[in-house]
């Protein structure tokens, strides 16, 4: 690890930034300014979007200056369950105004065929019906002007 390297976490994944590899392709902040904002310090805000969104954009980095790892892979104990001490077990479902249903915490997600769907600890489900990644949200609600009213 280089001295200039930085890491940022939302508790679920850690995003690594290797500035020496960055060629300023601008992909990250064109895709997700809520998380990757070069005008802000720290320039990565891990609370700006869901884990899926962050991973999607990290993967778009052409030089792998951005990379990520699941925290459970970094430190296996943290997510091992009740042995690791008090743990948030309550599930939370939240309606975003004019946006998706955001699920957090402990829940099991089943797809239309009844099969369990892998998901992140925080995930967004489409409410507008127009996502290209159903059942998940991909931001299409903004394009179609979906209103939750």
């Amino acid at each position: 690890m280089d001295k200039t390297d930085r890491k940022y976490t939302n508790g679920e994944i850690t995003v690594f930034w290797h500035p020496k590899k960055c060629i300023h392709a601008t992909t990250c902040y064109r895709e997700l300014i809520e998380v990757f904002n070069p005008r802000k310090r720290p320039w990565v805000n891990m609370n700006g979007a869901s884990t899926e969104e962050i991973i999607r954009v990290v993967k778009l980095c052409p030089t792998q200056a951005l990379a990520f790892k699941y925290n459970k892979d970094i430190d296996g104990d943290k997510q091992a369950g009740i042995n690791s001490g008090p743990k948030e077990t309550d599930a939370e479902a939240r309606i975003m105004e004019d946006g998706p249903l955001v699920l957090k915490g402990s829940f099991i997600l089943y797809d239309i065929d009844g099969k369990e769907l892998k998901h992140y600890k925080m995930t967004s489900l489409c409410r507008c019906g127009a996502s290209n990644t159903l059942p998940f949200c991909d931001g299409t609600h903004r394009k179609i002007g979906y209103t939750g009213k």
Partner: protein
Amino acid sequence: MQEKETTVHQPAEVRILKDGPIMIKGTFAFKDSSGKITKGEQELYICRCGGSSTKPWCDNTHKKIGLAY
């Protein structure tokens, strides 16, 4: 073994119903878009087609719209 927390909730069950709403069942906190929170055991049906007139709840409009997923 360390001490267990006294309250351990079952994970809530979230089902994507075919061509229909999202069902959320179990013990969870539900927050609507105004920030109002409802806690405890509940079973909710959230509109997924975008066309319900009782949003965020499903009102079966998906059948008219023909939501296909």
